């Protein structure tokens, strides 16, 4: 049932300071936080374990300085991890030579950056075609391919514009087109929408979901915005001070936050949107009169009008269509006002 793991990262450390490798060895590869402070080292990423599955949107969430950007750079080997094991499609990423890495990035990886990182001297089309250009693809082929991508992100007609002539949202569309032009399997997005205005940010999130529905990439998405994480993620890893505090689906995070830190984030999340009926229902289906049946995968928000309008509870069905629980107006209100579920 579960999809295969695409990117497997175990016990990854990134430590800054003098002689980090020696330091890690001295503490058997597992220094405590006080060891780090004592030695004057900075543990940007501490013992990170992440399994990213084929075709999922995996969001790494954390405030600034939590190490999320460092972690994603370790995963793409833009920087070398101090310790740990990273496997990409069962190949040891950390053991790859420079040449193998270049090859891997040219065919299997794409990345989108917070400040867009477009090349100022190239047009939209040339920027999009850039990864193909460095591979030595001839001009005709790469421009045809780039044109398709530009169209995919909705920038047709602006192929010959320079980045400075575009708005922030449009620039990031180019960044997305560029990262997808080589048809990568693994797609890194490092806070792609953080530099945009709130309205544009929403629009770009929709655009992102539309693209993913078309392309089914394996995605590692970095953000500091919990709402964004909830909105986009299949699974979320919450980071704090270099450590991953919890890895779970949005719903699990809200239902069972691992600690107060995570709970603090979930407090202001519109629960009705995230929670599915199946996770808020009262278990068991006693005999009685019901207003009807509802699919357990529905979010509370979509079902709320129906439940409220009826004076009797509904039965909730599981994936197989079997009734497994009941839900009534009182439960829905509890969810809506964020009353603690017992």
């Amino acid at each position, binding site marked *: 049932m579960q999809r295969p793991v695409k990117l497997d990262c175990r016990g990854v450390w990134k430590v800054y300071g003098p002689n980090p490798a020696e330091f890690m060895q001295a503490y058997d590869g597992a220094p405590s936080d006080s060891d780090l402070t004592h030695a004057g080292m900075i543990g940007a990423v501490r013992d990170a374990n992440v399994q990213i599955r084929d075709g999922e949107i995996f969001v790494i969430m954390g405030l600034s300085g939590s190490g999320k950007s460092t972690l994603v*750079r370790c995963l*793409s080997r*833009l920087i070398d991890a101090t310790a740990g094991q990273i496997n990409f499609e069962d190949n040891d990423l950390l053991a790859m030579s420079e040449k193998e890495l*270049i*090859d891997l*990035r*040219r065919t299997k*990886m*794409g*990345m989108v*950056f*917070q*400040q*867009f*990182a*477009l*090349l*100022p*001297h*190239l*047009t939209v089309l040339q920027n999009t075609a*850039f*990864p193909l*250009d*460095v*591979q030595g693809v001839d001009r005709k082929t790469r421009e045809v391919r780039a044109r398709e991508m530009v169209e995919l992100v909705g920038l047709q007609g602006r192929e*010959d514009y*320079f980045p400075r002539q575009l708005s922030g949202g449009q620039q990031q569309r180019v960044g997305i087109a*560029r*990262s997808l032009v080589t048809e990568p399997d693994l797609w*890194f997005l490092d806070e792609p929408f953080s530099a945009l205005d709130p309205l544009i940010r929403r629009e770009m999130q929709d655009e992102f979901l539309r693209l993913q529905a078309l392309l089914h990439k394996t995605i590692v998405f970095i953000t500091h915005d919990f709402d964004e994480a909830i909105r986009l993620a299949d699974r979320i890893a919450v980071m704090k001070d270099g450590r991953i505090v919890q890895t779970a689906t949005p719903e699990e995070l809200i239902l069972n936050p691992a600690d107060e830190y995570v709970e603090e984030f979930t407090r202001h999340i519109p629960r009705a949107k995230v929670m599915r009926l199946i996770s808020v229902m009262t278990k068991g289906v006693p005999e009685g009169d019901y207003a009807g049946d509802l699919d357990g995968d529905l979010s509370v928000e979509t079902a709320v009008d129906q439940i409220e309008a009826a004076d009797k509870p509904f039965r909730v069905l599981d994936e197989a269509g079997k009734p497994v629980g009941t839900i009534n107006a009182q439960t829905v209100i509890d969810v809506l006002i964020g009353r603690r579920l017992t």
Partner: protein
Amino acid sequence: MRVVRYITQPTRMFWLGLLLITWVLSSYSFSLYKALGARWIIKFPKKWEMPLADTISEAMKWLVEDASFGLFTFREFTRFISSIIEWPYQVVRSSLIEGFSTGQGQQAVEIAPALSWIAIIVVLVALARYAKDWRLASLVGLCFLYLAVFGQWESAMITLASILIAVPLGVAGGLTLGILSYRSALVERLLRPILDLMQTVPVFAYLVPILFLFGFGPVSALVATMIYAMPPMVRVSTVALQTVPAEVIEAGTMAGCTQHQMLWKVLIPTTMPTLMVGVNQVIMLSLNMVIIASMIGAGGLGYDVLTSLRRLDIGGGVEAGMAIVVMAIALDRLSQAFAKKTQDDLPKSGLSFVRRHPWLMTVGMIVVGLWLVGLLVPSLQSYPEGATLTTSTFWTETMKWINVNFFDIFEAIKTFFLTYLMIPIKRFFVGIPWVWGIIAISLAAWRVGGWKLGLMAGFMALFIASNGLWGKAMITVYLCGVSVLIASVIGIPLGVWAGQNERVNTVVGAFIDTLQTLPSFVYLIPVIMLFRVGDFSAMIAVVLYALAPAVRYAAHGIREVPSQMIEAGKVSGCTSWQMLWRIKLPMATPSLLLGLNQTIMLALSMLVITALVGTRDLGQEVYIALTKANTGRGVIAGLSVAFIAIIADRIISAMAQASRERLGLK
């Protein structure tokens, strides 16, 4: 009471005390020496002097005559380098002015003529149009037409040929070093002091060693020009590469760039606008060297200026000087336009090469056409001699007239400044006993920048004294000090004014731009004509040359005051005068200090050149070494000037840094 409190702050006590002791010692050092019979007080003892100058001269001699790398000797090595430089230079020179020929002297047979003057102007105009617009094109066209009409064409083309070789070599060399120091922190650390020296040692000082290595001629001149013009390119390219956003580099890496692709497809194109600023600097510095380089065989316009100055032929000097200025303006604006050029026109894909580049084709056809016609009609090659104009006599006559009618006024101004400002300051500096001088400099440097800086300043001052150059160094400090003082008194208010008023800014900006475009040597011409030789003339020339940064940095500092501060001032009810004194000027202090720093650097570099108008400072020492071809003496004096510059630079930079931290600007 307020005065007492003001003075008795510990910081002020230190500086006032230092000044007071220095002043007392300076005033009475001579009496002290007479009374005690201790001559060492005012003069560094001869027998303690280091024989460094002789050692350097010997080493140079050994290098040129005996040094060998086994397979080849040092001399063969320099010959090899000079042939590499000479060959392209000859090609450019032949195609611009002399034409290609075989055979020697009388038997020379011309194979192909040089480009016609019309063709050269057409190419330059087309370049200007391509870089910007028709206005720039006509400016460049007029500038070069001026050269033809006023009979300077031939010299100008020789100068242009050396620029065309020196600039690409300087840019390529500078970029290479810049890339190396970007890639390796070690290289950057090694390169920094070398660049500091290259920029502060006066040019004259390394003319002699270059002469020894490469002989009198254009190659030596080109080498000297490159050494002089390269450092800013190294710095600009290092900084430009370092400021490429990390994300852009990561984007390149994720696209799968190799190291080579990263450099040529990501780093260099992204930094191109900044690199072009460096190229512009190289061009301007190369032009600045034109006259000095002609002392070791460059020929061209610089040689014309130099010979006119030596003959005191004012008219000729002004004409050739104007030609350099005109060329400098044209090349400056042209290269600036290229630096600012942004490609806004959409690339027309799908057309043939000829259709895509109509301009290139037209210009190419004109050049080839004119060249073919020139084969048949040689008279088209060069501007008709009968149609040249000369202003030489006009300038000579005007000068005569001014000197006859206004002699008294000029003399009065000169005497006033000398009596009330320059001579007292000179007495002060020259009177300082060398022992106290070294101590005072170390103390000042220690106070501002810590014990490391103090130690460095002390050693540098000791180096100057122990080579018997203390007296001359003090004259340099005095001349530099007076000039910087006057430049600041004129420049800072001008800059403050320009910083607050857009209209004034346009006018002052244009004036300063023009001043900066002029090669340093050119300033000497009018000054000598009006005030003849001496310290006063030197001071005026230095002030003119060093004015620009004082104005620029002041205007910049005032303009950069955050608008919130100004609004806060307005809300508190400041008058515009209070606004200036209480908010804008304090906030602009770091910028003003940096301006002061730059003013001192420019003043020192100009000061050496003013040795030609008879100052008795280190510049004169360098110049004497040049005329006597004494390597050691020149290098030591040059290093002394560089050390003065470095001490001043470090002290003022430390002060600027401290004041920036105090203001929380960082």
